[in-house]
């Protein structure tokens, strides 16, 4: 690994012995930490690891009545938000690259504003907006709040991804487009955007992870997503901590899968690199991509 070789020289016999010692000490410390956690969970007067706290997960009802609907609600909101914010984000990104200063300014203001407002606040706003201004009621209301909140934030993030993707393309691409007689807009749509979107595909997939995690914020406006479903389940079974552990496992599995897909895409793109330089996909790893004021936290709405 390159990381080690920057920091450490190839180890000699003495260093190898030291590393072994460190491994033993570190291993023991980690085991100690795990033991502490297990002891905390299994303390006699409130044992979380007994069979009857875990048995409910193996009934069909737990999944058909709670977890699967929860997963479905989470995925539904995330999918809607992804599709809408991809479309809006591309339009906003085009606006930020526009020839007209007014359009550039307006799109810039929009993006900067919605990137610096917490998603939770936007969900609250759109929830009450849907109720007050649009007269939406029932279960559609919380879905509207979640999707609208996610969309406004993530379309801003995607707009920034598109913009930095276009900006990192070689200048010749645009010049060539203009030279063959295309208008600036045609050049953008036919030449620049396809390349920028392809290059940014891994970041867009990582953004999916962020969106999926953020649907959990819908809890505050009573959206029946996975965490709320899990809590309902736990309150009927009295096994809150095991439920949280199962919920975490579900989220980690889905998100880890998505992260792997993003990494796979990235590797594919690097292999099929044609001509132009592929911009490094992860803004977290490339400071040059993220010098704008807001949080271009590709992976991290954190």
């Amino acid at each position, binding site marked *: 690994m390159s990381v080690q070789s920057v920091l450490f020289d190839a180890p000699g016999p003495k260093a190898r012995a030291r590393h072994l010692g460190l491994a033993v000490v570190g291993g023991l410390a980690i085991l100690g930490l795990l033991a502490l956690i297990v002891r905390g969970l299994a303390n006699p007067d409130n044992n979380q690891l007994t069979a009857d706290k875990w048995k409910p997960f193996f009934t069909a009802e737990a999944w058909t009545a709670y977890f699967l609907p929860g997963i479905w609600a989470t995925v539904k909101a995330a999918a809607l938000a992804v599709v809408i914010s991809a479309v809006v984000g591309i339009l906003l990104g085009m606006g930020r690259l526009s020839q007209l200063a007014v359009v550039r300014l307006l799109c810039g203001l929009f993006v900067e504003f919605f990137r610096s407002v917490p998603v939770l*606040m936007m969900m609250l706003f759109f929830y009450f907006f849907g109720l007050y201004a649009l007269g939406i009621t029932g279960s559609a209301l919380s879905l509207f709040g979640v999707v609208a909140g996610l969309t406004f934030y993530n379309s801003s993030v995607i707009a920034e991804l598109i913009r930095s993707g276009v900006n990192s393309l070689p200048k010749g691409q645009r010049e060539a487009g203009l030279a063959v007689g295309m208008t600036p807009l045609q050049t953008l749509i036919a030449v620049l955007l396809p390349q920028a979107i392809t290059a940014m595909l891994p970041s867009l997939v990582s953004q999916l992870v962020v969106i999926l995690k953020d649907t959990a914020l819908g809890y505050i406006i009573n959206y029946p997503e996975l965490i709320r479903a899990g809590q309902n389940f736990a309150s009927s079974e009295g096994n809150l901590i095991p439920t949280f552990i199962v919920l975490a496992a579900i989220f980690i599995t889905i998100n880890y899968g998505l992260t792997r897909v993003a990494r796979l895409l990235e590797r594919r793109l690097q292999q099929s690199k044609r001509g132009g330089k592929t911009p490094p996909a992860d803004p977290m790893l490339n400071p040059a991509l993220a010098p704008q004021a807001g949080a271009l936290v590709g992976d991290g709405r954190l």
Partner: protein
Amino acid sequence: MDALRTLLSEYDVLAAFWMTIKLAVLSAIGSLIIGTVVAVCRVSPVAVLQWFGLTYVTLVRNTPLTLIVFFCAFGMSNTLGLTLAPTIIENNFRWGVVALSIYHASFVAEALRSGINTVPQGQAEAARALGLAFMPTLSTIILPQAFRGAIAPLGNTLIALTKNTTVVATIGVAEAAYVMRSMLEFNISLLYAIFIIMAAGFVILTLPVGIFFTYLSRKLTVQR
């Protein structure tokens, strides 16, 4: 306008944002400490520690913050009875800080590691070729460059952390989003004004941080 004035006298918006700032500052310190430990594990030459660092980052990064906050407040505190303070409000606040620290530590660790990754191999080789020992190489050649490379992602993490403090509204800590919700519940006719005020608060909090970190990373970037 009058309605708005009564509203603002009824709800202490400034106190809410002060709570947000307290949460952000304390969690930033906490996540910096945990994140540094995890980053050191990840780049250490010991396989066990590397594995620990990678596992921590993978698990925490893929879990929603809401779930971590709930696990701390409802799981650790309510179910297991591990309280950090005598009163419920203070207890939830402290567990909120713990949850925010645990969650953002994974991003801090990745930021620090990416900073180390920006240092080219040749720097270390040159230092060793000059006869510098391990510690001088680390402290005078590698780490100064690594920290500079980590500034921009650390700044992004801090901004995200500030915004994410709103998640602890779900466990009843009276910060900005919590106050916003109670304001909206009883004064829905002032919807737009309330949103603009609370959103502006966050713009004011995060924009200077963003500008400062951009300035810092431009100024300190190692030109290659």
